[in-house]
């Protein structure tokens, strides 16, 4: 099995969710994160003092899939999360040794 992880722009979560549903992903786990990268942060001012906010809000999406499915999923995310502007984010894939569905105790590919 494999785990596809993506860091995307918050307002692209909706299209990504749709795209994943379309390619048959059975589930998603989503986390609010903050990103630092080429996109850069911005400056805020409070009571006349400036300060730099380096981090930009992002959403992390994780999808567990069987080995064959990872490419399809990465591809679906890549297409649906793209705005073409800096800060669209990254996708990466890692190997997963084994998986369990807690409710039933099912293992491996059946767990997903």
């Amino acid at each position, binding site marked *: 099995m494999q785990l596809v992880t993506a860091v995307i722009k918050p307002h692209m979560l909706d299209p990504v969710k749709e795209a994943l549903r379309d390619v048959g992903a059975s589930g998603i786990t989503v986390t609010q994160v903050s990103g630092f990268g080429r996109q850069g942060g*911005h400056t805020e001012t409070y009571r006349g003092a400036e300060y730099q906010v380096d*981090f*930009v809000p992002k959403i992390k999406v994780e999808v567990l899939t069987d080995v064959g499915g990872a490419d399809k999923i990465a591809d679906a995310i890549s297409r649906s999360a793209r705005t073409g502007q800096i800060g669209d984010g990254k996708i990466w894939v890692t190997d997963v040794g084994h998986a369990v569905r807690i409710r039933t105790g099912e293992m491996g590919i059946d767990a997903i």
Partner: protein
Amino acid sequence: MKRRLATVAGLAALLLVVTATPAFAQDATAADVQIVLDNIWVLVAAVLVIFMQAGFALVEAGLTRAKSVSNIMMKNLMDLSAGVLAFGAVGFAIAFGAGNDWFGTEGWFLNTNHFTDGYFGTLTLPTFFIFQVAFAATAATIVSGAMAERTKFKSYFIYSFALTALIYPVVVHWTWGGGWLNDIGPGFTDFAGSTIVHSVGGWAALMGALVLGPRIGKYTKDGKPRAIPGHSIPFAILGVFILWIGWFGFNAGSELAADLAVGPIALTTLLAAAAGGVGGVATIWLKTGKPDAAMAGNGVLAGLVGITAGTAAVGPWAAVLIGLLAGVIVVYSVFFFDRIRIDDPVGAISVHGVCGAWGTLAVGLFATDGGLFYGDGLALLGTQLVGVVAVFVFVTLTAGALFAGIKATVGLRVPREEELAGLDIAEHGAPGYAPDAMPAGTPSPLSAAAGAAAVVS
């Protein structure tokens, strides 16, 4: 120490002379005391009305998103600040100064040579002005909610100044200021301003929301409205409570005197608010199966707006009916404006515009003296209708022109990126809910926790 208190008293006495008001000594007559009581009561009522600004700010803040919360609070604070100056300099003279049937032309800058003693009955110029300016600020601030989350702060500032200085005062002159609406039929009756204050605000809100267009994401591609839930129901309901108590000042203070009519006015106010709350919650409950908190709040406010015109002219039963129906009307009105793609995040158009009109017409139905249901025919109702329509036409035209003008010059709406990120950072420099700064001084990365505040693009 007695000596010194005497000094203070002397100073006060002196001041009395300076401000040219009659001094009260040991031998004050009952009439003197009554005059003081009139002024004290109306001042206390004015304080309650000014407190309503906090109520409006909270209702609007609560029913919109966290990422623009500073902006809402600032709009409410600054339309009061700027409004006091604008109304004092210009608006008050247009509203209450001598002039023609349409607007006043004298008394700029609270000119005491024009507004001489007795001009406002037993009320002094300061008392009367403070009470009235609180009303002007109310009319102005109603619009803020309908235009929330997408309007440039600068542009709102300009609008608010214009409404307080020019548009609202003209309507006041037509009515309380002695203008033409008093001469129609039995005379247009709007005791505390269902139309004069609330509908003016509501119709201006309508034009603002119309010229602005809906918030990004409010409608699906096929035009169906989506819910954009407000970020803090407790703020919204606290705001409703504050508005409710402030309204006792609004309505009962509009008696402009301390007398025994104040009690009945307060009673109709209380009953209509309660009935509005019950009507609003019952309607939404029946329609959707859920007693929605925001709609319950809107119901209470609708009841209050509804009774404002007739608060001194109708009896308790009528007050309950007017409020109850206002509570029903407001729910359907909110649905209506949602459907016709006018995005009013807080329901200001429905609460103030529509229910203001309803309340004004209801006087023609329920007034114990002149009302249709009291067998007095259609004369009053017709007059009320003329007033409602006249104000609607005047405000939609002038406010429409104002917003169109602002749009064409400085612009009315913030850029798309700014709207997506929320107005607080781009317009005011910092988020309304800043995450706790880390010990080293950098704010924590969790801007997102209190509502995703950074620039997304």
